[in-house]
């Protein structure tokens, strides 16, 4: 809708105060990095990047300058005459980015740009994208299903659910103060509990597991039984079925060199606790709004 491939059923799309709702994609100051990159296979890297400038009839000299600038920015200056099929996934991704940015759009739309890359490469590209964004100073609209990516990359995050915005806020606020259960559950793991007719969530890393005899002063505590223990490297995830109903998952940093220094086991009776100000009250939702629908 921002790029102009779809028409809004209602409402308007404004870019810098200008209503562009009725404009075709080629009349908008928006460029897109497509999920499958959509590089032109019959053109070289440099030709791909120059395409938008050529179409816009930018004079040849300036065109060459801007193309080589864009190539430099994505560190592909020595690949300018390669065909896209001769590039690796990460390189194609960068060509797609350069091809869009070289036109200096007002808004750059990135549609899951890193979805096709493996994890290591994706993390590396996240850093590069952030650097490039601050260099070119263009608004990036970044679509992703990867919650961590959304928090890492963004100045502002909008969480969509079935085409409706649930919350727009800073990444930190989104995580620490989700407005409803959908957002809490979609961004990270939430532990929603009903107590005294009120519903609240608490993040796993804010919950502590207490050994017997430890002081729990100033904390809200509950007792329960361990139902699952999963060691995931940086943390250990422990699920606890609470005696007063409901279940929570907590994450404990594996600070000790050996995780064996903890010896709790499944079905152990334990006490968990958290600081009262870490509890986030939320509005209850229609209970059958299942988590599968959240990806929209």
């Amino acid at each position, binding site marked *: 809708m921002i790029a102009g491939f779809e028409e809004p059923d209602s409402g308007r799309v404004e870019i810098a105060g200008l209503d562009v709702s009725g404009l075709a994609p080629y009349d908008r100051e928006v460029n897109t990095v497509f999920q499958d990159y959509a590089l032109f296979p*019959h053109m070289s890297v440099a030709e791909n990047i120059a395409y938008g400038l050529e179409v816009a009839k930018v004079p040849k000299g300036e065109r060459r300058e801007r193309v080589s600038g864009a190539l430099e920015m994505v560190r592909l200056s020595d690949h300018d005459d390669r065909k896209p099929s001769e590039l690796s996934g*990460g*390189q194609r991704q960068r060509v797609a980015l350069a091809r869009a940015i070289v036109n200096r759009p007002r808004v750059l739309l990135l549609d899951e740009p890193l979805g096709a890359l493996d994890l290591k490469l994706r993390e590396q590209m996240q850093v590069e994208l952030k650097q490039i964004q601050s260099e070119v100073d263009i608004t990036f609209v970044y679509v992703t299903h990867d919650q961590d990516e959304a928090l890492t990359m963004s100045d502002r995050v909008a969480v969509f659910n079935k085409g409706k915005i649930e919350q727009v806020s800073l990444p930190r606020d989104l995580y620490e103060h989700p407005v409803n259960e959908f957002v809490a559950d979609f961004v990270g793991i939430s532990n929603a509990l009903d107590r005294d007719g009120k519903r609240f969530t608490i993040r796993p890393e804010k919950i502590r597991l207490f050994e017997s005899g430890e002081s729990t002063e100033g904390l809200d505590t509950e007792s329960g039984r361990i139902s699952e223990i999963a060691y995931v490297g940086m943390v250990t995830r422990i699920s606890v079925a609470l005696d007063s109903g409901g279940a929570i998952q907590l994450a404990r940093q594996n600070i000790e060199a050996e995780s064996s220094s903890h010896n709790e086991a499944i079905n152990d009776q334990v006490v968990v606790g958290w600081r009262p100000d870490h509890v986030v009250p939320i509005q209850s939702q229609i209970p059958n709004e299942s988590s599968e629908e959240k990806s929209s």
Partner: protein
Amino acid sequence: MRLSPVSRNVLRLAVGDTLAFIYIPLFIILLYAMNPAQTLAWPPESLTLEWFPKAIQDQAARDALLNSLKVGAIATAFALILGTLASLAVARHRFFGRESVTFLVLIPIALPGIVTGIALNATFTQVLGMDLSLFTVIVAHATFCIVIVFNNAAARLRRMSTSLEDASADLGATPWTTFRRVTLPNMRSALVAGGLLAFALSFDEIVVTNFTIGVGEKTLPIYIFETLFRPNQPGKVYAVAVIAILLSMIPVYLATRLTRGEAATARGAGAAGATTGATN
């Protein structure tokens, strides 16, 4: 895939049989073309090349060849334009009856030539009151040439991601620029291959041609067919046939070459395989 020795031999035999089946008769044509005798006799008593210069100098054969080239070229040109447009309509736009159109466009290739022939003959002579001529042959040939082009072009468009065209529009190109600079270049090899195949089909077509050609005019296949059983100089006709075989090999050879080179470029620049690619 690993094959057991037995199945490997079976396959080898099958390939050998297939090739023999196709090429032995062609080889016999070549022998006949080199048979100095005035009558068809097997086996030839000696071999000669004298028929070839005679065939090349034969005015009737030359005219027929020229006609065939003309018909093939114009029918193919027609087919390239209409087939491309039809494939674009079917592959890039949604409209009512799209599936049916695809099906209807494909049918002519399956129709028996004789049915197409009498249908077109009736249409031209009875309904439209036209005189049969090379022009009517061209129109007739275009009907099946379009199918070949359409098929090739539509297959290519189906494989070609529409995001290429979206990207072009996104970068500011009008639909016409997008077609010229993105869609067409990516279809080119499919169109060339389709055009060459269409030309080859037209070049040796005889059934439909027979029903749509004017009196006294001949295409090469018709010339060969009519001259073959005349008693004088049979070797010359076979020599013409050999030349025709050689000529029709050119477009088929080119078409296969072009479609093979295709595989590499058509896979193109998508994200497929990106995960296996090296970082830098």
